[in-house]
């Protein structure tokens, strides 16, 4: 068993595949990040495949929607395995941070990700803003 943390990206439609493609496009890296989509899978089948991907390895499961079937399957896996973390609302900055720091221990990776979960919304009607009305 490897102690290196792996990322499992699970999403609706082709989101997981698309996000991995974007990570590879930007970094040239993708090792340590695997994908799974939920299309056509029962909750049991989704959980089983997720469990197979995780194995015994410490894992961060990145999912899109907190109320989606992917998130519930991930939480079930976490209930069984303490070395699994679930991150809902995945975005590209989170994945990039993970890719560059996945050799850290799981606790430290999660601490880093907690500081990167904010969403940047750039819009203001304030004329003094450097990005007015955008």
């Amino acid at each position, binding site marked *: 068993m490897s102690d290196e943390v792996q990322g499992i990206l699970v999403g609706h439609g082709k989101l997981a595949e698309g996000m991995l493609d974007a990570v590879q496009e930007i970094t040239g890296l993708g090792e340590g990040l695997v994908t799974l989509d939920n299309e056509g*899978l*029962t*909750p049991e089948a989704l959980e089983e495949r997720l469990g197979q991907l995780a194995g015994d390895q410490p894992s961060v499961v990145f999912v899109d*929607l907190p*109320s*989606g079937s992917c998130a*519930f399957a991930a*939480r*079930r896996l976490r*209930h069984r395995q303490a070395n699994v973390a679930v991150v809902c609302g995945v975005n590209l900055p989170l994945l990039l941070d993970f890719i560059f720091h996945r050799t850290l221990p799981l606790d430290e990776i999660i601490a880093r990700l907690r500081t990167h979960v904010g969403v940047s919304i750039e819009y203001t009607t304030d004329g003094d803003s450097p990005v007015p009305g955008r």
Partner: protein
Amino acid sequence: MAILLCRVDDRLIHGQVVVGWGSQLGLDFLVVVDDELSASEWEQDLYRAGLPDDIEARFPDVEAAIREFPDWKASAQRGFVLTRDLATMRRLAEGGALAEVEINIGGLHDAPGRRRILPYLFLGDEDREELLRFQRAGSAVSAQDLPGARKIKLEELLNLASG
């Protein structure tokens, strides 16, 4: 009527229900009727953890659901009722809970003995028998995964399942 959707979906609470239907019909509470889930607090917590704070989730068994259904219908709040299979929804119907309520089949996925009827609907012999029971009871049943999708009525579903 405060029960806006009565849905059979093996994923129970998930994106299509909360976002797809919930955001279009409005949703204050979700009732998941399931004998097994009603006895499992950690699984109930798991589902609650994924819901927005303003949506309440309840997890009665079938007997409790039959008793409480009239109160949900009379409530000023808007709710969805979910079961993971046709048999559980049929038990609700037999208990008299579903009079004048249309049953939505929103997702039954591939499993041994089932074959693909629609992209979100796989049915086996047991499922077909359950649909025939609904037909004999005169229940209003249709398949539709999302609000904007075509509604497929029970007769057409049975034809597809027989084909």
